[in-house]
């Protein structure tokens, strides 16, 4: 392609990588948290719930700043992770973390709503047939919430594709390393005449995200049809 430079293609590839990892890695945790919030009874549930929503409430820059404080080279968590060889700050892995954190409340909500819609009577039926709680979850709850899980995943992915504030604050905007599409768009918008390049990037990322969206809808429809039984 002539109308995007290699740096921009790098940004596109990086955004896809970051979004995919962010989605894939946070989904299981989101599932766990959503299940705890939907069905669990424990002290600190309200706290957990608040914590999950925090990235939504905070301006993204603040979230990024908090991430930098805790996971940066000088943060305690960052140092702990560095000692096991995992660098996050100023690294694409950090971009994935930022994207995951920002998308987390959306994922949890979607999954939680699905879990709450599962009839506990079906789970009871599975228990009487000998399924332990884990098995009930794996064989009954999980398949039934598949549409919600897919919805959560696509929300997380879309958010990751668009995330800017927390990402640029946490991992900065280093071409080829941490420059995601939104960061690249930001950089283009900072210079006069950069609008057309920014617009091209916008179009590409929108096309990619919409493609993922359509695929997810098709998947969800299939899952729902299976349940409807036709």
């Amino acid at each position: 392609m002539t109308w995007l430079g290699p740096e921009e293609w790098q940004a596109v590839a990086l955004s896809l990588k970051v979004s995919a990892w962010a989605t894939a890695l946070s989904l299981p945790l989101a599932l766990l948290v959503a299940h705890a919030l939907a069905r669990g009874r424990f002290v600190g549930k309200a706290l957990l719930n608040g914590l999950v929503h925090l990235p939504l409430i905070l301006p993204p820059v603040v979230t990024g700043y908090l991430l930098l404080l805790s996971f940066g080279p000088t943060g305690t968590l960052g140092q702990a992770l560095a000692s096991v060889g995992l660098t996050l700050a100023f690294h694409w892995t950090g971009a994935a973390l930022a994207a995951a954190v920002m998308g987390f409340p959306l994922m949890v909500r979607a999954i939680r709503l699905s879990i709450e819609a599962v009839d506990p009577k079906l789970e009871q039926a599975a228990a009487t047939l000998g399924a332990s709680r884990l098995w009930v979850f794996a064989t009954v709850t999980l398949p039934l919430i598949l549409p919600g899980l897919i919805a959560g995943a696509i929300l997380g992915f879309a958010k990751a594709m668009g995330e800017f504030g927390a990402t640029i604050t946490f991992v900065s905007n280093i071409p080829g390393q941490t420059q995601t599409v939104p960061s690249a768009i930001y950089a283009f918008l900072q210079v006069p005449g950069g609008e057309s390049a920014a617009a091209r990037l916008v179009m590409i990322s929108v096309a990619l995200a919409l493609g993922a969206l359509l695929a997810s809808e098709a998947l969800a429809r299939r899952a729902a049809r299976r349940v409807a039984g036709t």
Partner: protein
Amino acid sequence: EQITVFAAASLKTALDDIAAGFEATTGNSVALSFAGSSVLARQIGLGAPAQIFISANPEWMDWLAEQGRIDPTSRRDLVSNRLVLIAPAGHAPSHPLADLAAGPGRIAMALVEAVPAGIYGKAALTHLDLWDQLAPRVVQTDNARAALALVATGAVPYGIVYATDAQAEPRVMPLYTFDTDTHPPIRYPAALVTGQDSAAARALLDHLASAEARAILFRHGFLPVEE
């Protein structure tokens, strides 16, 4: 060898050109990370892997110097800039300041308490005894470029931005250039980050101050620093 430079976003086009030239001559690669000066300064304060920091104002550089995060000996002011009053292209008033004062149009500026371009602009208007009168009409954006965009799209009839920005945007025209004594001097300081410096980084910093690089900066509208 790769050199990572954290630079204020308003320098993007000029620095892209300079870095390309540097890469071609030395064979080193330069990664330019653009963001707001505040974000970059904080990141460097928290250990970001940048070798060189170029700020859009002296305050953030001072802040890093206090923490010992930059090498003060390497610090130098690269360029300066001017502040201009702009309007959408085609608007040709004879008495720009008087028209501005007469209103009623809004004035786009970067955040007047936080972002350098806004701080300078407020200082200039205050110096001209216009601030109290104009303040209610000021719309503040998160950076100077956004203020420029407001004028360029015609959403706002006036803006106060850097001359460099105004020059690069054909949809706006400068109406009035503020005198340099109406506001604190506009400076773009650069320095090496403590503990990250290398021969290549020093070479790049020197190159930034070279006549060749300054020529590129001037081409983009930046001005030499008057001592």
